[in-house]
């Protein structure tokens, strides 16, 4: 008899503890009061006050319930101590009740609740803004760590690119000597077709003079930079498409292939920060961007290059404008970077800018070749800048792939943010 009794009583109690009558006031109480409960070893005096209030609330609720159901305390106790109620699943149900008598348990519940709310708030902020405001991430070491990593990567990329540039240069010189006629024809081709190629002026000039060689080598630099990134990041993208073009111009092929593969990898290696375009807006991301931006420029130029051969004068003007724009952007980037890494990098930078500036002009040639096969290799790079600069119709083919790239970049960004949030979570929860 007694057993029967306790069984229905237990069920009734459990039902009550799951009903809104109980859950709502208790949850309300916890959510309202949990904010002061932190993870410190030491308890605040205010905890005691809140615990007292909690006791009063629970007692009131339970008394009301017992009256309603018509059981007395003894029955309540019997029911709760019956084996049925001792099962693990029910234990958690009884926790809020037991917490009245056990301060430590109460505290644990409140700290948990507080953490839940905090995580919820973080999630909401993220959903609304797409990112956590700096004030919520700044304090974390994660941020500085990431930045440091990015700096390291950038420095290494710069170093590599410089090395490879030097290498390329020397190789180029050799090449020129050996293949004087062939190489010249390659570089000349685009220019002649284009007619007045102001951008390429330097390029147009014959290989014979060493100074002229340099413009051509610039594309190589870009490639080198990207190549550096490649080596670091295991994830190489199919470079094959561009490689095929290589046959046409010996100099350029090497340049293009790495560039394509290099870009994606670069960005990924840098922790998924934004691409070149974002750099200007986000100082944090800037560090990696310069390298990417060259690549992007090269690509964009490549997009143009195809048209370039058959360009009208006005289009060429546009090209020039774009080149000027690019140069400007670059200058900005340089300034930014100088701020960031004052000492070491300055020397390298001085070199790299000079090599870079000419690139716009030089690349068109390379691009032109790449473009023939180019369609298959989506020019991943510079989505943001492209819109302002690139009206020419020929670009249509290139445009869609670019957009894809954007989303990819954004995805990367998102991932980065997620990562940050996860870290935050971890830290919070660990406590």
């Amino acid at each position, binding site marked *: 008899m007694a057993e029967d009794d306790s069984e229905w009583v237990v069920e009734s109690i459990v039902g009550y503890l799951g009903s809104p009558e109980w859950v709502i006031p208790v949850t309300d109480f916890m959510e309202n009061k949990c904010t002061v409960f932190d993870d410190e070893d030491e*308890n605040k005096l205010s905890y005691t006050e809140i615990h007292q209030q909690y006791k009063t609330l629970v007692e009131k609720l339970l008394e009301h319930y017992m009256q309603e159901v018509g059981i007395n305390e003894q029955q309540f106790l019997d029911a709760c101590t019956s084996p049925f109620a*001792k099962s693990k699943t029910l234990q958690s149900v009884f926790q809020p009740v037991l917490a009245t008598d056990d301060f430590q348990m109460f505290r644990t519940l409140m700290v948990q609740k507080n953490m839940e709310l905090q995580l919820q708030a973080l999630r909401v902020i993220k959903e609304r803004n797409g990112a956590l405001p700096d004030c919520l991430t700044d304090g974390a070491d994660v941020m500085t760590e990431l930045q440091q990593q990015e700096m390291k990567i950038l420095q290494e990329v710069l170093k590599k690119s410089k090395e490879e540039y030097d290498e390329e240069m020397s190789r180029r010189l050799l090449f020129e000597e050996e293949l004087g006629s062939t190489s010249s024809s390659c570089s000349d081709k685009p220019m002649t077709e284009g007619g007045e190629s102001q951008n390429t002026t330097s390029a147009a000039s014959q290989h014979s003079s060493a100074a002229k060689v340099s413009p051509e080598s610039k594309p190589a630099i870009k490639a080198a930079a990207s190549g550096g990134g490649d080596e670091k990041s295991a994830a190489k993208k199919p470079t094959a498409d561009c490689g095929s073009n290589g046959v046409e111009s010996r100099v350029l092929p090497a340049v293009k292939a790495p560039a394509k593969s290099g870009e994606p990898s670069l960005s990924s290696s840098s922790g998924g920060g934004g691409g070149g375009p974002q750099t200007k807006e986000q100082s944090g991301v800037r560090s990696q961007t310069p390298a990417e931006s060259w690549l992007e420029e090269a690509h964009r130029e490549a997009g143009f290059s195809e048209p370039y051969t058959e360009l009208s004068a006005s289009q060429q003007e546009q090209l020039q404008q774009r080149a000027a724009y690019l140069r400007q952007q670059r200058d900005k980037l340089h300034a930014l970077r100088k701020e960031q890494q004052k000492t070491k990098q300055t020397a390298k930078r001085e070199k790299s800018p000079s090599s870079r500036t000419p690139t716009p002009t030089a690349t068109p040639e390379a691009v032109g070749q790449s473009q023939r096969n180019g369609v298959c290799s989506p020019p991943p790079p510079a989505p943001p800048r492209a819109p302002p600069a690139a009206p020419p119709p020929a670009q249509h083919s290139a445009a869609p792939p670019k957009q894809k790239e954007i989303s990819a970049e954004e995805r990367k960004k998102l991932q980065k943010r997620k990562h940050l949030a996860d870290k935050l979570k971890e830290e919070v929860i660990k406590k």
Partner: protein
Amino acid sequence: MGEAQKGLLSVIEKLKGTTEQEVRIVLLGLDNAGKTTLLKSLASEDVNTITPTQGFNIKSVASHGMKLNVWDIGGQRKIRPFWKKYLENTDLLIYVIDSADKKRFEETGLELSELIDEENLKGVPVLIFANKQDLATASPASEIAEGLNLHTYRDREWQIQACSAVSGEGVQDGMNWICNNIVNKKK
């Protein structure tokens, strides 16, 4: 109504159904007496990073088959009014004194006598730790006992124990006394 509440509380207490006997101990004393250090020493924790307690600490220590829930409440003057909120259902009071702080013997004596008069501590055994015996300037426990008029306590068990919370000396002796006394009393 008041009775019903009491009954309910006791019901919930029984709900925990632990086989272990649980003992609630409150650890009080002036600021800088060494309460938290003593607590950590009881719990075998590091005693080198202790800062003045603004709130309270709780440690559960298993001893002699009992679970001792020790509540260490901050001793700064502004916190002392809160002490009495923690005295309910207390099985034992530990009062800690800085044996080297002679200037405040009177102050600590006053606080102790106030506690002794608390309704919630009626008949509750008191263990006084004459702490900081590792300091050269520390007064001996007997002297302190006299100053506190401990021998006038008639309504409860009491004991004074010289100790050093930092070195751990004497702490275990005090705990032994506690366990013996609680066992006697609870029976």
